[in-house]
């Protein structure tokens, strides 16, 4: 039988594709499966350049920092917290674009459960903070 993404991931990607807000979608293993154009604008990279990618790979690609400028470990990222704890999480952090610009963002990550409670992955909506 052919492989197919779960319906929840398909619909999450469709939603992200239609949103003006930046949105990032990972599967249950943490593999990046999609981020949308508003996310590309903030991250400075296109999904075609980065994904699909394993968690370690995408996490390092965006040079995440705390708001004070300390490098964030993989375990501290909102999406990995949502994946691990299977709970929503909100956090302010910074990302580094390929040109070296540091952008402050706020991110809300949440786990994705299918109707019968199958854990399918997580998504994060994020936006750039003024100033």
């Amino acid at each position, binding site marked *: *039988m*052919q*492989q*197919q*993404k*779960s*319906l929840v991931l*398909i*619909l999450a*990607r*469709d*939603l992200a*594709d*239609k949103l003006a807000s930046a949105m990032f979608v990972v599967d249950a293993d943490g593999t990046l499966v999609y981020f949308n154009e508003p996310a590309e604008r903030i991250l400075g990279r296109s999904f075609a350049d980065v994904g699909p990618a394993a968690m370690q790979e995408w996490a390092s690609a965006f040079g995440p920092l705390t708001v004070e400028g300390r490098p964030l470990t993989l375990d501290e990222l909102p999406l990995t917290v949502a994946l691990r704890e299977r709970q929503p999480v909100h956090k302010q952090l910074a990302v580094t674009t390929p040109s070296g610009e540091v952008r402050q963002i706020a991110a809300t990550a949440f786990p994705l459960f*299918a*109707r*019968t*409670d*199958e854990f399918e992955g997580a998504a994060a909506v994020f936006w750039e903070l003024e100033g």
Partner: protein
Amino acid sequence: MWGCRGSLAAPGPETVRYGGNTSCLEVRPSDGRLIVIDAGTGARNLGIALGKNRPDRIDILLTHLHLDHIEGLGFFGPVWDEGCEVHIWGPPSPLRTLREDIAKYFSPPLFPVHLDDLPSHLVIHDVPGGEWEIGATKIRAQPVNHPGPTVGYRLQDGDNVLTYISDHEPALGVDLRSVTPDWVSGYALAYGADVLLHDSQYTEEEYPGRVGWGHSSIAHTVSFALITKVKRLVMFHHDPLHSDAQLEAMLVRAKELWGEEPDDIVLSYEGMEIEVS
């Protein structure tokens, strides 16, 4: 095929060729068992046809609990026969089991008899996440894009595969021509099937006014069938407002879109028999 109409039964002179009963399919695998897919109003006639020759066990696969897929259940003779073991399979909701949801239909004022008072030996199963077997038939259910908990079914008997996705809107928010197949709802269920019965409720002109209703236009149905490389496509779940003549016009359009081997696409009709091979 005992019913292929969608949404609402539509008897009358305009629908005599393709039928007015809602979804119900009788499947006879190589081991002689009886598997019924969906229990729309067509299930009543199936029960009558089975008569005293019914098997001791019947398995009913429900795609979802919209009324056009279950309203024949209370009129399906074997559920009133205490010697019959009826297994019903279908998708649960996030908070309720399939049994609890079916019990809503089998309760006053919707129906005069409670589910627990049916005389047959009724066994109700939430569909498993993976593959399971009913006799020689391997079955897989997967959620598909339609409002409410809804699955499609892939039945495999030996090398022969039948896929049934009666209510499905794979093109919701997606251009089926531009996404990779593994991002298409229902892809894994349908891939390479010998026969695909698929929602084909709307014309291309009707669909824009019905986006999100959970059904497909002819163009979406044909695109889905081509993406999944099925061998034969059976247009199913006819709109109750579509007359026989309108369905035949839709078939002409579907054949244009299908391209080569136009005989591999057909309209479902009551009484239709398909050999899956």
